[in-house]
């Protein structure tokens, strides 16, 4: 399953719910305000690190660049992807769950 999360974890708890329920080998893509979870050094970093040991995690590059972030700010292990690679992820995984 591919989970797509567009909410900041500092605004709503959809990412926390997603991290809690994601199964091993699921993938999680953070986009729109969801990209704030990929920042190094926040209170959610530990939860992300734990999830990275069982799930692949991705962040949408155009969205984090639009918010003044660069690859250097991203927690190691989270891969940045383009829209084209976002499409590839939805092909690779099924179903796609939007955590709105």
């Amino acid at each position, binding site marked *: 399953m591919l989970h797509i999360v567009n909410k900041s974890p500092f605004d709503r708890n959809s990412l926390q719910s997603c991290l809690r329920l994601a199964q091993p080998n699921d993938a999680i893509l953070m986009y*729109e305000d969801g990209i704030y979870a990929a920042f190094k050094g926040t209170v959610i970093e530990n939860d992300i690190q734990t999830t990275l040991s069982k799930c692949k995690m991705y962040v949408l590059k155009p969205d984090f660049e639009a918010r003044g972030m660069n690859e250097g700010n991203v927690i190691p292990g989270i891969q940045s992807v383009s829209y084209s690679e976002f499409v590839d992820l*939805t092909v690779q995984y099924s179903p796609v769950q939007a955590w709105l």
Partner: protein
Amino acid sequence: MKFGILVNEGPYQHQASDSAYHFTKAALEKGHEIFRVFFYHDGVNNGTRLTVPPQDDRNVINRWSELAKQYNLDLVVCIAAAQRRGILDENEAKRQGKDAYNLADGFRISGLGQLIEAGIQSDRLIVFGD
């Protein structure tokens, strides 16, 4: 692969419509098929041809219309959500006794069955909203 796209938010209010557009465009450029883009709730506001954004801003509505023209996309606006928000095509305007209609090029108004069909016919249904 065949994709269905659901857009639940209006333009300029939330990024959902932008994200849906960029995803749809990327999928088409990779050679995938978009079975339908369905606009629901405030998403129906993506289908009004009367918006006039500043010239240095993106025109969300025209962008959808142009993509529809280029790839022969099926852009469907939910009729019940549209009527509540004043989005009418020529026939509906006549039927409701209104003096104008505002549905943009490339969009059509239809029912929720079109969303269900998109869910059944597509390999993936991708939801964009708030």
